[in-house]
């Protein structure tokens, strides 16, 4: 029930929404890039530094114990958030990109041989393309790409044709950052498993909108970034099935990840510490728990229902603008609205909206191959979060009319 959310009260939880930009009250529509942070996350960050900042796991003093306990509590919170079977299946990373690189490097270099195949899709973010390209180049593997239709949906028939017994990894995005498409990942995973391939899901965009249940999806790896779920920047997680993570060698060497070190031989620590070399991003990990509490308190289905309302309204409203074409018309979408306007460069749209206090993102959104698929160099993208309003979308529409008038 979307009407159970009190949007005005939610807006009050986000101090940054009161900012004035170029003389106007900020309208923040760049949520697919990063979401803003509620007060309780900011307080958690400050509270950590003010009251229990200490290095974790090896200290025996009070602060170290308190910090360690909060840190491990966050791990269990993320375990619950994803419905993972074990807390040690949650590896802290600095973000989605870091998680994908960990798997490509540790799993990929251990288990992939010359001639093996990796499958990604046309709509991947560069961070789910480049690590696999690097791996394929090094190991002599083949990178295959699932095509999409004009609405921005994966062609499942084509995907099935790409799967062979040489397929070792399928790595696809759960929700496209450029198009908003929600991909049928459960089906993708099932089909990959049928040929014995492992599956990584890039959940950077999905995790703030959809309920994620890794056991139900049966994915082998799932990566996400907390800063896109109203949490702090610089931290994310890699979920991996325990058996797989156990079979993988460490990705980085250093403190925390060892059991015993001599100059002759080092034995490694157990999961999850094996993959968490060095002092982690303790403050942000601790604060992440509060972001997830905030989201679950509102309820993801409520958030999704409200965001869908915003998306439907915005999609209809921009439809009235002459020469505007929406890029990404999938049947199942999150609240991402990407568009181009005939004869107007997306950057000009972004600059002139910014002058009106409206923050959108313009460009290729780190998905250049996807832009090539649509024969464009970039789009303008407005992406909505739970604190956005219909009135703000009206401002965007007025803003776009002004842009058209000025550039006409």
């Amino acid at each position: 029930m979307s009407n159970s959310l009190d949007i005005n009260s939610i807006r009050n939880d986000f101090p940054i929404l009161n900012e004035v930009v170029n003389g106007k009250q900020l309208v923040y529509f760049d949520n697919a890039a990063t979401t803003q942070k509620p007060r309780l996350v900011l307080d958690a960050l400050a509270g950590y530094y003010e009251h229990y900042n200490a290095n974790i796991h090896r200290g025996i003093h009070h602060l170290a114990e308190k910090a360690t306990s909060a840190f491990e509590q966050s791990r269990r919170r993320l375990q619950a958030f994803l419905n993972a079977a074990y807390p040690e299946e949650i590896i802290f990373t600095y973000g989605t990109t870091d998680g994908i690189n960990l798997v490509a490097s540790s799993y990929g270099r251990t288990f992939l041989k010359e001639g093996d195949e990796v499958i990604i899709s046309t709509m991947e973010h560069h961070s789910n393309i480049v690590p696999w390209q690097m791996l394929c180049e090094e190991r002599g593997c083949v990178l295959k790409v699932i095509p999409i239709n004009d609405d921005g949906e994966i062609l499942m028939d084509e995907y099935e044709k790409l799967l062979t017994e040489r397929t070792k990894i399928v790595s696809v995005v759960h929700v496209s950052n450029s198009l908003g498409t929600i991909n049928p990942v459960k089906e993708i995973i099932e089909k990959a498993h049928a040929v014995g391939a492992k599956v990584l899901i890039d959940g950077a965009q999905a995790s703030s909108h959809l309920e994620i249940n890794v056991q139900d999806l049966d994915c082998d790896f799932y990566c996400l970034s907390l800063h896109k779920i109203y949490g702090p920047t610089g931290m994310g997680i890699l979920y991996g099935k325990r058996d797989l993570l156990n079979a993988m060698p460490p990705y980085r060497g250093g403190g925390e990840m060892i059991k015993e070190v001599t100059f002759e031989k080092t034995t490694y620590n157990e999961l999850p510490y094996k993959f968490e070399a060095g002092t982690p991003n303790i403050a942000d990990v601790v604060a992440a728990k509060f972001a997830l509490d905030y989201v679950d308190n509102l309820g993801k289905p409520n958030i999704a229902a409200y965001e869908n309302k915003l998306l439907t309204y915005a999609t209809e409203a921009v439809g009235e603008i002459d020469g505007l074409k929406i890029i990404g018309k999938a049947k199942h979408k999150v609240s991402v609205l990407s568009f181009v306007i005939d004869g107007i460069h997306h950057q000009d749209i972004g600059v002139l909206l910014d002058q009106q206090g409206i923050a959108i993102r313009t460009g290729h959104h780190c998905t250049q191959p996807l832009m090539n698929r649509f024969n464009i160099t970039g789009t303008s993208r407005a992406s909505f979060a739970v604190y956005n309003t219909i009135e703000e979308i009206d401002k965007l529409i007025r803003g776009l009319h002004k842009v058209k008038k000025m550039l006409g």
Partner: protein
Amino acid sequence: MTINAIQDELISDFELFDDWESKYEYIIDLGKQFPPLEEQYKTEENIIKGCQSKVWLNAYMEGDLLKFEADSDAIIVRGLVSMLVKVLSGHTPEEVSRADLYFMERVGLHQHLAQTRSNGLAAMLKQMRAYGFAFQAKSINV
């Protein structure tokens, strides 16, 4: 006119505008009026790739003076590019390499120079100075 005299003239042009709309309408106009770079110069070599818009820059010597021509696929960047060309084209390479560009900040457009990845303007300015140094070195060698 010296580089600074041209900059001062631009600054006084911008003093006429009291809101963002007239300021950006002026830049858009500059962009529209700026002669397009001939296709033969829109080469891979002359391209300065920004994250979002492309900028092309062609440089050549005419007598003792370093001349610039440029273009962009985005109209506002085109207007900004036209101002950089207006200020820096037609001076000696030494003058170009030493120029202190203060007008962008004074007219409140410095954020466009700071966004290096988004529009290539900062990279273009760096390239213009690099041409200044390169052509100085050439004339010394000759």
